[in-house]
């Protein structure tokens, strides 16, 4: 089937053809689920949150003016839906210890991670990512996984571009710190 632009499907939905929403769901479901999963850390919650976001976007499609791209507009809905869900569960979250490490320790950590097998590295990175704040996980996901430009991330997260850069730097550093802590606790156990 010929792939059409987002605006074509949006116009069709607004004309009263709800089935035209399905190609948009197909196109963005993976990204929406991936971002929700990074924020919520739970498959069921992420799936529900991503579905909620699609329904919310459908219901407010008339308010989409086309100033931003549909992708950016929709991802703002995905982000706010998942963040509000995670805030609702905040009281159940366990707060983890923050590891403050020196630059040398960060280099050691990087080397240690580099020497791991792909599977080990994946498991460690997942664990370290899980220790970050939801917004830190979201920003790393949008920038590194989805390769979104800083301006789009700023629109999604309601931040300025310079705030996004600062937050990216801090999130990356925190990820290294968490990796370091993880490796240190494994060494202690060994």
């Amino acid at each position, binding site marked *: 089937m010929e792939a059409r632009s987002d605006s074509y499907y949006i116009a069709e939905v607004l004309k009263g053809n*709800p089935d035209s929403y399905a190609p948009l*769901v197909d196109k963005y479901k993976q990204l929406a689920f991936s971002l929700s999963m990074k924020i919520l850390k739970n498959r069921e919650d*992420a*799936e529900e949150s991503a579905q909620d976001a699609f329904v919310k976007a459908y219901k407010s499609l008339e308010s989409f003016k086309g100033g931003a791209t549909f992708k950016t507009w929709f991802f703002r809905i995905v982000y706010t839906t998942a963040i509000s869900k995670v805030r609702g569960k905040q009281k159940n979250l366990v707060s983890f210890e923050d590891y403050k490490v020196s630059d040398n320790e960060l280099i050691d950590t990087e080397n240690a991670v580099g020497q791991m097998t792909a599977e080990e*590295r994946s498991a460690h*990175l997942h664990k370290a990512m899980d220790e970050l704040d939801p917004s830190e996980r979201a920003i790393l996901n949008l920038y590194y*996984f989805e390769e979104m430009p800083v301006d789009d991330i700023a629109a999604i997260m309601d931040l300025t571009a310079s705030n996004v850069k600062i937050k990216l730097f801090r999130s990356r550093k925190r990820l290294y710190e968490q990796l370091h802590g993880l490796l240190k606790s494994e060494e202690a156990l060994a």
Partner: protein
Amino acid sequence: MKKQDLLIAYLKELPREEPSGNFTQMVMNRVQLETIKSPVVYQSLISKEVWLKVIVVSGLLLLGAVILYFYLPGGTNSTSYLTLPKIDFSILFKPFLVFTQALNKISITFLGVLIAIASLLLVDQLYTRFANR
């Protein structure tokens, strides 16, 4: 390779999370439900646009009547029954006096029309509110 490039490479190695196979179907089921349960919209008897026009015209007519009142001979003469020997309280009541005198100048028919429009507006608002419950 720089530290940042390494981190990017490591992060990109992570497997992508995929939603369940029937994700699109689940969303579309909910979308269909939303489409079906879209609420019945009760419309008022007279549209907002018409009401706006009626209000603007009535306002202009009323304003015209008040302005005309001041241009009519003897129109601004106010009674002095509210004047005390030392303090003139009539200044406090002047706006009301002007208003009631302006109303006196307006014909009974015009007042009747105004009251009828206001009543219709009230009935329409009440009907819309109850119908949408």
